[in-house]
């Protein structure tokens, strides 16, 4: 078992915002079970801000903590601000992650970005078809 920071352990023990929004505005999924980590983010957007964010994660302690931290960091941010969240920032907020976990389990920001991109794409399509 790797050495995790207290913050990683806190998020692993008490993960925030678990779940799946039933009628999401955007969905983002990264990873696959073969690699050992899979994250699915769903977001609700209101007035250009992330009003709600939930996630489901199949993965190790780091992956669960990362998902939880990303969900906290993203909530209430504008889409532009949320798109600027990087995996490096997430790791820093968690008080660091073991070196070998940086690439495989630290995919939370990627999953969030995918959900935002999904929202943007859907709305663009809607806007175009509506015109």
């Amino acid at each position, binding site marked *: 078992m790797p050495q995790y920071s207290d913050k990683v352990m806190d998020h692993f023990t008490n993960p925030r915002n678990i779940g799946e929004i039933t009628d999401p505005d955007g969905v983002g999924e990264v990873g696959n079970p073969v690699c*050992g980590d899979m994250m699915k983010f769903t977001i609700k957007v209101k007035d250009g801000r992330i009003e709600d964010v939930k996630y489901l994660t199949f993965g*190790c302690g780091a992956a669960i903590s990362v998902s939880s931290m990303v969900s906290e960091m993203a909530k209430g941010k504008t889409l532009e601000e949320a798109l600027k969240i990087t995996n490096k920032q997430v790791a820093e907020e968690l008080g660091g992650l073991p070196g070998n976990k940086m690439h495989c389990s630290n995919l939370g920001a990627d999953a969030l970005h995918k959900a935002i991109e999904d929202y943007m794409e859907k709305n663009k399509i809607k806007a175009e078809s509506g015109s």
Partner: protein
Amino acid sequence: MKTINLDYAAAAPVEPAVLEYMLPYFKEYYGNPSSGHSLGERPRKALEEAREKVGILLEAEPKNIIFTSSASESNNLAIKGLAASAKNKGNHIISSTIEHFSILNQLKTLQKNGYEVTLIPVDRHGFLSLDKLAEAIKDETILISIQTANPEIGTIQPVEKIAAIAREKGITFHTDATAAAGWIPLSVEKMGVDLLTLAGDQFYGPKGTGALFIRRGVRLTPLIEGGIQERGLRAGTENVALIAGMGEAARIASENIEQNSKVVAAQRDKLKESLLANVPHLHLNGHPEQRVPRNLNLSVEFVEGEALLMRLNMVGIHVSSGSSCTSQALKSSHVLSAIGVPPELAQGSLLFTLGKENIADDIPYITEQLGQVAGLLRNMSPLYHQYLKEAEKNAPVQ
């Protein structure tokens, strides 16, 4: 909080009687066994007594036992030592896909140095294909190395049959018996092996102890050169106290092997039954019966092993996992992959290795906790949510 160790293969306490036995060799009898004066006498005697005791465990002549620092070193001495000394006879080595990394990694090194390696596949229970083994033999084959039992899924190989195939062709046969020694009866004569590896910490001896049985006439090139310790096959002053402890642990294991195995297997089976009956979506890995008594390997569907391990650790239950996140190489268990366990199930595997301590009263707690932990992690698993949606979709209309 109570601590329940279900990871004895990783670490077990040294038997109290073994510790007592070792202590004088750190203090009163600290002499060098190679010394010509009287300070070396007792340590020298301790080494020979340990050799006799390990010999009894294996039904082997004591003079054919060499002490090493670990099973990994014994495996290296057996394989690299044989490969070097038999180079003029051939360059082909046969092993299996589910061997320990102390075998597989050195075979990769030997391949880089001009040796040819064939790894025989195993079936879904972990049994080696004897036909494929026989087919793989060439004129250049100098060594067959197949484990006695697998440390992860516990499967016990038909070693006698493998040895017979090797003997018929005049090929040296090595077996890594680390997971088996002390838990199932072993006889180098009945098994027909030429080289056999074991480690003391697997049967309540100290860590940092290993031994290699070398049949008379088998020539090995030493890995560590220097003095003439251990018949010149392993130079360096012997770690007398630890070797004495390993010997004593071997003596105790030999005398109690039948009883210990019976008791531990009964507890393992109760644990298995309780878990399978009460925690949904568990899958047994390896053969239901043909496995070392203390081994149980289960996959917990829809969740990942390290997260399970961490959650169980929080409630005092210590297990191991074959998930990639618990491996330094970040690859999931090569053994589970070789027996055809799907990757997502291999990621959620839990390895339980029991000790001879009584855990009967703890089984309800272990079952309850695994059920809770699995439920909690499944609640946040996209795979489980996907399963639930599909189950709902496919449910018959009322």
